[in-house]
């Protein structure tokens, strides 16, 4: 015995377990080994707790080392016993049942789950997902139980899926904008969310937990910052892990986030080593199993006095949830010269993204089809040169080899039975046969075969087939797609957003086959607008998809300053408002004050960082944004009407103010200008507005489709109504029909030219029920958007300031 070296290990986890395997295989008689473990059991495969939770495996199935294994190797097991002290000078470890001396000491203390220290985190029924005890608590959940999981990462989702499979009502609360944001991009996160929702799991994103409510010491509900209350019988916190370093720190070893180790897994004390999730190596800490196994191998070599070096490698992730096929590997961090290749197959729910740097593949994300993931991971890990197969790389190994790749060759190489149109089940040969029989454009193919006639997302493939088959004889269709990011027209995208109930930008990009990661400056504002019109309650306006003016709620000028235009309802103002405007102009040194054509006052030349403060001042005087910058309602211009004018027939000013109060804040495809004139003399110039009202003795003439810009158009009469109420309802209905139907950036007259005035009359004048329904949908949207953006933004003044000012750093 005395000739053996004394090895003491603290922690019987997967890393130290693997190290023991290597060590006892290579040098069975060299060490006298003592193994401490705080958990009352030996090494089991923690990764497989998810299948245990889901009921696919039992605990016995996932035990890596049983009692017999330890006995056969002569390892002294001190399980269920905590280490209380370490004397490094005397080389003695003391446990709860007594001391043991060592020559070499190994820390394998693993990690602790991070518990958010919010009120109620110590209630019964609030658990982490870390060990068998946690798993057993989750396994007790079934039909009739409600569970909330905080954390939409790998572990949280596996816990959620496991409990949902047992019949529990599960809600996942995630603070970020998409699931598994460290491993997935938003598109793959969207698909994952969709699959989980199909399993009955509710997913709340951008959701901040504030408090856990309890009753008699038992968890009852989770409260969110927005006031949502989520009742629950069990709350699982799966928000991350932290290396368990307390013992090492007390012992005086060098620690940072983890226990510092060198390339040989040696700590700051040459007789003490560490391995696994408790270590920090070269600035990194570890949570996946592959690097832990690499470390275990290196440590076993080091302990035998052999040279070995631990090197960090690329990592890959797979989620162990049945039916959610996803894979992520490599690195998506910033760097020079990176390029993306994106492939989407909406019909099959497939998304693939490759990140290329120079001639090498550095990252990959896949969802729905991960069959080639090992091949891609190999390319990333080995740093292979992929320049020769770049054009067809995303199609996987089956398309590689042979001569130079032509972008169309992937389509040409598809077998005749390959399905092209998933909606109608049309295969390649059906289409090529139709082409051979004389169908030479998209319309003819659709008529003959139904290919691309339903959802339309295979349009690009069908066109490529036409091109492959006909060569130069095929001309691309004249209706242009929105931009280079997709193959669909604005009209197609609008139609598909409604018919497929697409409620997020990620959904649109994925289901409609976007070819870029997240669109461009052309399609993003359009898609953002279409979504907020069609799904006012489900979708929130995305400021980052807005042109600067609409994001900053001010008009950018050529020198980078902004103009500020407060609203003057119906063109009516007061001495107090004018004084407040004058004061603001003085205070912020506004160089130009101009009266606009929309009957209000423009303060030009305001500095970006002053915007929130000038808004706060104007707000204080009771004024709100005039939206002079928006594709939305601008102004309702009025004349003085019956109040003062001897010709006035109705209260045109009053109606103008009412219309402006109903419509303000609404987003429209392009700017929307209105006017109300009190008599046919038309002093408010209502007949060159998008919507104009001319008052007459017997009521209100509403005409639409005017413009006085690049095109000058006179409005056309839509209808005459008798009352103000009817006039307001018609205007709301027209505005909503324009919002729902027009192409983004088409003024109302362009939309009218497409659908025809007769259609608008049929829909909104003659059909009273339809008119009311349109007005109601408008009002629903306005319940969200009829607010002053200035008041909101004035509260976030710091966002308008520089992030940092380095000019204040002392010059060297």
């Amino acid at each position, binding site marked *: 015995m005395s000739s053996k070296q004394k090895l003491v290990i603290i922690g019987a986890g997967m890393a130290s377990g693997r190290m023991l395997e290597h060590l006892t295989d290579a040098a069975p008689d060299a060490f006298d080994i003592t193994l401490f473990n705080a958990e009352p059991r030996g090494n089991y495969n923690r990764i497989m707790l998810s299948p245990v939770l889901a009921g696919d495996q039992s605990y016995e199935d996932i035990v890596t080392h049983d009692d017999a294994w330890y006995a056969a190797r002569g390892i002294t097991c001190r399980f269920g016993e905590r280490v209380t002290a370490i004397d490094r000078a005397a080389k003695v470890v003391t446990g709860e049942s007594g001391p043991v001396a060592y020559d070499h000491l190994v820390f394998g203390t693993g990690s602790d789950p991070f518990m958010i220290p919010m009120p109620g985190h110590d209630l019964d029924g609030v658990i982490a997902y870390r060990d068998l005890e946690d798993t057993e608590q989750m396994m007790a959940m079934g039909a009739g139980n409600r569970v909330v999981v905080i954390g939409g990462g790998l572990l949280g989702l596996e816990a959620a899926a496991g409990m949902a499979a047992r019949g529990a009502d599960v809600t996942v609360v995630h603070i970020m904008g998409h699931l598994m944001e460290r491993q997935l991009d938003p598109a793959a996160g969207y698909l994952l969310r969709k699959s989980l929702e199909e399993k009955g799991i509710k997913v709340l994103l951008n959701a901040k937990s504030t408090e856990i409510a309890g009753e008699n010491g038992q968890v009852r509900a989770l409260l969110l910052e927005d006031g949502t209350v989520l009742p629950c019988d069990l709350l699982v916190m799966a928000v991350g892990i932290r290396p368990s370093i307390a013992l090492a720190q007390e012992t005086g070893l060098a620690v940072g986030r983890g226990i510092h180790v060198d390339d040989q897994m040696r700590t700051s004390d040459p007789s003490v080593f560490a391995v696994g999730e408790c270590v920090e190596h070269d600035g990194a800490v570890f949570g996946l199993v592959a690097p832990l196994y690499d470390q275990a191998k290196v440590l076993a070599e080091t302990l035998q006095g052999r040279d070995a070096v631990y090197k960090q490698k690329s990592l890959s992730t797979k989620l162990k949830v049945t039916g959610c096929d996803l894979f992520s590997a490599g690195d998506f961090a910033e760097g020079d010269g990176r390029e993306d290749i994106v492939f989407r197959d909406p019909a099959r729910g497939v998304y693939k993204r490759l990140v290329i740097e120079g001639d090498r593949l550095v990252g990959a994300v896949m969802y729905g089809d991960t069959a080639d993931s090992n091949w891609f991971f190999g390319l990333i890990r080995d740093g292979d040169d992929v320049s020769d197969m770049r054009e067809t790389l995303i199609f996987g190994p089956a398309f590689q080899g042979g001569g130079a790749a032509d972008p169309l060759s992937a389509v040409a190489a598809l077998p005749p039975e390959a399905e092209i149109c998933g909606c109608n089940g049309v295969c390649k040969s059906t289409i090529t046969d139709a082409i051979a029989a004389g169908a030479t454009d998209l319309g003819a193919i659709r008529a003959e075969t139904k290919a691309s006639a339903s959802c339309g997302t295979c349009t690009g493939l069908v066109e490529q087939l036409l091109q492959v088959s006909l060569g130069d004889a095929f001309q691309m269709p004249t209706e242009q797609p929105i931009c280079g990011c997709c193959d669909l027209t604005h009209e197609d995208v609008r139609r598909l957003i409604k018919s497929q109930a697409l409620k997020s930008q990620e959904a649109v990009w994925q289901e409609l086959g976007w070819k870029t990661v997240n669109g461009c400056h052309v399609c993003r504002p359009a898609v953002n607008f279409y979504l907020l019109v069609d799904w006012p309650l489900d979708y929130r306006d995305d400021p980052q998809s807005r042109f600067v003016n609409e994001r900053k709620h001010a008009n*950018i000028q050529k020198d980078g300053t902004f103009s500020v235009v407060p609203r003057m309802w119906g063109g009516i103002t007061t001495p107090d408002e004018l004084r407040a405007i004058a004061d603001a102009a003085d205070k912020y040194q506004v160089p130009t004050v101009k009266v606009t054509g929309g009957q209000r006052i423009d303060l030009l030349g305001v500095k970006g960082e002053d915007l929130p403060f000038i808004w706060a001042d104007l707000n204080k005087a009771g004024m709100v944004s005039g939206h002079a910058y928006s594709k939305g309602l601008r102004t309702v211009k009025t004349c003085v009407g019956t109040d003062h004018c001897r010709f006035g027939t109705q209260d045109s000013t009053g109606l103008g103010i009412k219309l402006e109060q109903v419509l303000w804040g609404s987003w429209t495809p392009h700017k929307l200008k209105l006017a109300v004139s009190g008599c046919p003399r038309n002093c408010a110039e209502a007949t060159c507005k998008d919507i104009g009202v001319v008052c007459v003795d017997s009521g209100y003439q509403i005409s639409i489709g005017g413009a006085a810009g690049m095109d000058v158009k006179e409005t056309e009469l839509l209808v005459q109504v008798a009352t103000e109420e009817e006039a307001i309802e018609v205007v709301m209905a027209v505005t909503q029909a324009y919002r729902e139907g027009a192409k983004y950036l088409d003024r109302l007259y362009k939309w009218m030219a497409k659908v025809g005035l007769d259609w608008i009359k049929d829909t909104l004048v003659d059909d009273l029920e339809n008119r009311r329904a349109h007005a109601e949908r408008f009002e629903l949207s306005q319940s969200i958007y009829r607010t002053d953006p200035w008041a909101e933004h004035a509260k976030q003044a710091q966002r308008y300031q520089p992030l940092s000012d380095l000019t204040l750093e002392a010059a060297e």
Partner: protein
Amino acid sequence: MSWIDIGALDDVPLRGARLVKTRVGCVAVFRTAEAEVFAASNTCPHKNGPLSEGIIHGQSVTCPLHNWVFDLNTGEAQGADDGRIATYPVRIDGGRILLDAASLDQRSAA
């Protein structure tokens, strides 16, 4: 390299940008993904448009004044436009954004 902490990652909106004032002019810090940032000159070489106010897509930004598009990796204008913006090394560490101050000094010395 001399890394200066210029602020928290979370202070830059996703697919958004913030300004940093420096002795060589304004530098825009772009956040293109959850954990991906770039730093480049804020000034478009065409008509001095403020690039931090542009729409950010993929690893590119579109100038808000006349829609010039720049690749944030190289600073090169894309498509038919011809021009380049200076780019600066930047990295994320523990949720903070670090900018290489040395690269700013080199430019001022040049």
